[in-house]
């Protein structure tokens, strides 16, 4: 069987003509189908690129991706899994929601278009928490995904399908989206690498909106290099997204070769409190020891507003979601209540039937936070606390810290069903990841060890636009862990 040996090697084999350009896609589809035919299926995908591979019916000269400096065919023949909230032409885009079941977009997300322009092939659309609202992929309207490392556990979320597809060896890399940790936390739970770039680094044209001031597309890979090469392919300015920054895209892996010598790594004490799982803490301490061995200096720092991050996130994200999800009204697209007798019934009936419980909960919370009499107390206040959370990071950077190192999640992957009845417990899974979204900074989660056989992720954070710095440090740590194995 064709092995997914890593993006660079696979693309090289295809470019040199050693393998058929569709060979890796065929192997990916075969493996995905085999895993889903098992007694306990992983169900990473909601739709596979069955039959003929997706046609490239739009040409390079047609706009957004004609950037001449884009490295040619760095993903040649590489199958890439795409989260189901990124619009694709040939495959449905349901966002894991019954309200969009069967919806096929008439346009394609810029990130998808760019990965295709670099030679990549969309292998399928991956399962996710409905509209990216969740931390376990159990909120999907189409059933949960299982963690390939332990089939009784969740893969994390909301990009759980993408993380599982990489962890199961179906594809070497995948696209996800990260609004509060939805790439880094599932990467941590599944033992793969997940990158959330700076807000504005990747165009969100064609990414179905959840919370627009926080949403950012991210990448998964089996290794740091695999995730970084996919990031290289999809990053860059796009006039179709006014929040994408017109800023040069560096050679992420090239710049990352500087090593750890002379780096100052900060360890925020607020991320190592008593509630942190003891096993996770021990693995993090081993990783810090490796950083020291690699020539970095490590020192404790403080991010004093961390305690308010989850509360701030859930006010702002739900407020934005309540507005963004107003468009699902049963008229323009998606599910429509069949027997509705009035326009009001079309709207309210279709939404009530189509949305799952977590989406309803968040729309309700967001509508409340924006409603007359409560706006200043909730939304206005949360905006100001967000500024203080971002200010904590600014102070640390200006104090000479190059990178921050934290656990990605306070625990390893939890069992399916363990937190579905307790929204607050589920929300607190994001406690170490939401801050990077609130501060708009880049972050990465990489596997740093296991506790009771379950992967533990370590998170590296850097100032805005310093993706190469987190990628470089993560690559050094990855190679040190590899050598010790």
């Amino acid at each position, binding site marked *: 069987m064709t092995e997914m040996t890593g993006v660079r090697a696979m693309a090289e084999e295809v470019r040199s003509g050693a393998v058929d350009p569709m060979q890796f896609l065929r192997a990916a589809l075969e493996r995905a189908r085999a895993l889903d035919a098992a007694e306990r299926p992983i169900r990473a995908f909601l739709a596979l690129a069955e039959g003929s591979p997706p046609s490239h019916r739009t040409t390079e000269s047609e706009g957004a991706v004609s950037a001449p400096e884009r490295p040619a065919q760095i993903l040649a023949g590489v199958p890439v899994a795409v989260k189901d909230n990124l619009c694709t032409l040939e495959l449905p885009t349901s966002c894991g929601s019954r309200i969009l079941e069967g919806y096929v977009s008439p346009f394609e997300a810029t990130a998808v278009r760019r990965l295709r322009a670099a030679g990549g092939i969309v292998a399928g659309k991956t399962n996710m928490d409905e509209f990216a609202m969740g931390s376990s992929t159990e909120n999907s309207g189409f059933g949960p995904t299982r963690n390939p490392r332990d089939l009784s556990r969740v893969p994390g979320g909301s990009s759980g399908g993408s993380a599982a597809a990489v962890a199961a060896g179906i594809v070497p890399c995948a696209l996800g989206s990260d609004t509060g940790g939805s790439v880094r936390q599932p990467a941590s739970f599944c033992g793969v690498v997940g990158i959330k770039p700076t807000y504005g680094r990747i165009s969100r044209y064609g990414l179905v909106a959840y919370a627009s001031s926080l949403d950012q597309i991210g990448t998964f890979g089996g290794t740091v290099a695999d995730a970084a090469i996919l990031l290289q392919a999809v990053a860059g300015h796009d006039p179709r997204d006014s929040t994408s920054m017109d800023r040069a895209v560096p050679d992420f892996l090239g710049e990352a070769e500087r090593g750890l010598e002379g780096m100052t790594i900060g360890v925020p004490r607020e991320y190592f409190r008593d509630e942190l799982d003891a096993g996770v803490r021990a693995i993090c301490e081993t990783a810090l020891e490796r950083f020291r061995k690699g020539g970095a200096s490590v020192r404790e720092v403080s991010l004093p507003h961390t305690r*308010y991050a989850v509360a701030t996130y859930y006010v702002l994200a739900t407020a934005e979601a309540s507005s963004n999800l107003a468009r699902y009204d049963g008229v323009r697209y998606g599910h429509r209540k069949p027997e509705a007798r009035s326009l009001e019934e079309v709207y309210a009936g279709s939404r009530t039937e189509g949305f799952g419980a977590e989406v309803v909960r968040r*729309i309700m919370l967001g509508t409340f936070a924006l409603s007359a009499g409560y706006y200043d107390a909730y939304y206005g206040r949360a905006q100001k606390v967000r500024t203080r959370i971002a200010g904590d990071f600014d102070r640390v950077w200006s104090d000479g810290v190059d990178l921050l190192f934290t656990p990605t999640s306070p625990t390893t992957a939890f069992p399916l069903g363990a937190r579905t009845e307790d929204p607050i417990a589920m929300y607190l899974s994001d406690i170490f990841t939401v801050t990077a979204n609130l501060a708009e900074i880049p972050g990465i989660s990489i596997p740093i060890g296991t506790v009771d056989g379950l992967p533990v992720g370590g998170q590296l954070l850097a100032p805005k636009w310093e993706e190469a710095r987190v990628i470089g440090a993560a690559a050094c740590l990855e190679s040190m862990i590899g050598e010790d194995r």
Partner: protein
Amino acid sequence: MGVSKDEVRRIAALAQLRPDESAVERLTAELNGILEHIQRLEEVDLTQAVSGDEGSQRALPIRDPEMEPDLLAPGAPADRAPDWQEGFFVVPRLRALDRDGEGEVAG
């Protein structure tokens, strides 16, 4: 600051949702649990304004208010809909708009 069941019904109406009575009951309890956690934001001293309090500091680029053909959507709009007349998509008429309640296709 918590919410009552009546308030939950009012918020649901604003959000175009129609939870049944058991859902109202459940949502009231859940929202109050979440609001209790959010309450901690009141501890933060916001008396001193800081740079950024007025919202995002990013200057968003302004573009000319001109329609451009969407190069990413292939083909004409007519290719993407079952029916297209005089520059409009033709959709099934809403039954609610008919006196007799019979749906028909409007031209």
